[in-house]
């Protein structure tokens, strides 16, 4: 070995920064339809390649091609488009509501709508998600009332979470949506625990854990992988790689590994990497993993390759750390437009019908918003009682909280 001099410290950098021309040449996008679809009981060591490619169904002409195509009916595809359009319209209105001072905080999904919307359709009633803050499509596609989501966002007097939780940190047992924490990564091992419990009770329900590319660096990710692997828990472990953890590019969490999906290999967990902007591919891969879990074949790790087209949250400005046109150059396109083009290519949809649907959906979102705002927004109108602040810390209020409530005079 030649003498290379003193040690050198390495800090990864993204390809481009503000002012540069977007460059996604390192994101290798294989042609749609070329990735094999193994049997659900395939041995993880025999399908390792699926962690290094991108499973894709929709091609550039909007056709569904290859062995992963065909998991959805025409009606289901149309419904999927509607869900994504609803989520996008919902986000736009709530983003604006935050700017208008009607709430303190909002997180939108722009560019990532396909993942949670399509995944939800692969689940059955009773299955449980342990989501992060960017999977509201699980609720929208699951039929959860938008007005309830808005009541929560506004922390008004109808807020199902009684004003206790930051906006968008929804919780609904009935809709299979575990309470969002805000602390990153903690929910991943909880999903595994829920799945272990389902197996302990010889149930048929399965769990899904959600995490972002950045939070895979948390030790809870490792714990979840170990537990899922050891106990063969019926859980689907989802990694949404949207390239950015606030301002930190995915390379800081990924390190020297080729992909996040490849993390599954060391645990003997089947790992698949999928085009997260392809509604059909997301659904097909999710369905495959859900079936594996339900057949007692254990966990699956799925990496969704996508792009966070918007800011991290309403408190973030991405122009400070990445080129403004980055999302336009993203090679996997816009999930909503891709599904729309597919439906048009199939003769099931048209630009006119799309415009019409957009208007219809917007009016539904606005109607829900009006209803929610009639119950109040963060600083105006109805709000949860201050007295309620002391409730629900424990099942039964202990004496010290009763004293403090008295002291507060409420």
């Amino acid at each position: 070995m030649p003498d290379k001099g003193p040690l050198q410290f390495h800090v990864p950098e993204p390809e481009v920064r503000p002012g540069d021309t977007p460059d996604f040449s390192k994101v290798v996008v294989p042609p749609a339809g070329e990735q094999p679809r193994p049997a659900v009981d395939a041995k993880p060591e025999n399908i390792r390649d699926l962690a290094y490619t991108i499973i894709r169904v929709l091609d550039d002409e909007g056709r569904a091609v290859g062995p992963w195509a065909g998991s959805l009916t025409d009606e289901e595809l149309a419904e999927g488009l509607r869900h994504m359009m609803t989520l996008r319209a919902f986000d736009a209105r709530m983003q604006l509501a935050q700017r208008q001072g009607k709430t303190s905080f909002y997180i939108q999904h722009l560019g990532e709508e396909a993942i949670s919307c399509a995944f939800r359709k692969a689940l059955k009633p009773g299955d449980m998600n342990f989501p992060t803050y960017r999977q509201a499509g699980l609720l929208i596609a699951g039929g959860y009332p938008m007005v309830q989501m808005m009541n929560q966002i506004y922390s008004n007097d109808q807020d199902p979470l009684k004003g206790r939780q930051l906006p968008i940190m929804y919780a609904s047992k009935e809709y299979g949506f575990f309470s969002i924490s805000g602390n990153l990564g903690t929910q991943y091992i909880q999903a595994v625990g829920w799945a272990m419990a389902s197996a302990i009770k010889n149930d048929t329900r399965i769990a899904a854990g959600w995490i972002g590319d950045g939070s895979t660096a948390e030790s809870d990710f490792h714990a979840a992988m170990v537990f899922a692997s050891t106990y063969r828990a019926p859980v689907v472990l989802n990694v949404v790689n949207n390239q950015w953890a606030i301002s930190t590019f995915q390379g800081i969490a990924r390190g020297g590994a080729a992909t996040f999906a490849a993390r599954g290999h060391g645990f003997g967990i089947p790992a698949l990497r999928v085009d997260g902007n392809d509604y059909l591919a997301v659904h097909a891969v999710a369905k495959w993993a859900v079936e594996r879990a339900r057949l007692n074949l254990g966990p699956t790790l799925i990496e969704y390759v996508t792009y966070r087209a918007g800011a991290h949250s309403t408190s973030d400005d991405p122009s400070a750390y990445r080129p403004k046109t980055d999302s336009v150059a993203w090679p996997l396109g816009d999930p909503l437009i891709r599904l729309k083009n597919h439906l048009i290519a199939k003769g099931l949809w048209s630009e006119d019908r799309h415009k019409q649907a957009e208007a219809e959906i917007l009016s539904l979102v606005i109607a829900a918003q009006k209803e929610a705002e009639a119950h109040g927004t963060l600083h105006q109108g109805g709000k949860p009682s201050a007295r309620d602040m002391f409730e629900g810390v424990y099942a039964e209020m202990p004496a010290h909280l009763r004293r403090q409530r008295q002291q507060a005079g409420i």
Partner: protein
Amino acid sequence: MARMTMIEAIRSAMDVSMERDGDVVVFGEDVGYFGGVFRCTQGLQQKYGKTRCFDAPISESGIVGAAIGMAAYGLKPCVEVQFADYVYPAYDQIVSEAARIRYRSAGEFTCPITVRMPTGGGIFGGQTHSQSPEALFTHVSGLKVVVPSNPYDAKGLLIASIEDPDPVIFLEPKRLYNGPFDGHHDRPIQPWSKHELGEVPDGHFTVPLGKAAIRRAGSAVTILSYGTMVYVAQAAAEETGIDAEIIDLRSLVPLDLDTILASVKKTGRCVIIHEATLTSGFGAELASLVQEHCFFHLEAPVARVAGWDTPYPHAQEWDYFPGPARLGRALVEAMGA
């Protein structure tokens, strides 16, 4: 009734709970086949099978995180962290998750878990097998914190904790596992079989959380104690001849303030003892509550006797441990004030 050590009583509590409720599961490091490094889960896997009592990977955050998910499903996990000194990797799961799930989800989800862990020193365990981290949990809203001092209470409190609808941190003073210990490390060990609180019913019973016990009635000074320090207090009272009233708090959250206040109002003096480090220890909370509520009854400043603010040393264990001599000096001082 049977004679039990604290280990047997804790095991019996889990046995009774698992027998009565199929949703109770027990897991942790070494707790399955082997039955735990302190043998607290011995025989449970053989009796209830591997699906209800099993070994876990060395991952405290994983153990507690999985238990939280199980609780969300509807089980009642009772997990073991091998030593309280090892709980910190699980701290995020306990503080940010278990403690807040009921509140933040407005009751959509709850977290009825029990996290057992051996606590305290006196066994030459050094800094990694001796800590008393109770104040790190009493500071967190949404948690209950329990510290038993004898086999009878250990069983009754543990069953109550497992049945409790909220997360309970259950700290087991390991120096008390096999017998009461008053800090006189140079004297022969007393077994529980010779102690009245070693008499434990075989079946189901509970000791409610939030009810203190008066271990010695007295009129001169109130000693607030829990865990191992209950016996240190008894020795100090005996050795100084001071007629102390000794309160065993049993649970720190919820706290039996009524019993504490009634005693201090009667005696007019209060000395607090815990093994944990002094600064920001639970004794600070107790001292504050006592002065808030009993200021005009006090004849002397409220005093605290605690572990020094150093890491738990190894060779200097008995210089560190707040034994009867140290407490005795504080009692004499309180009486002289």
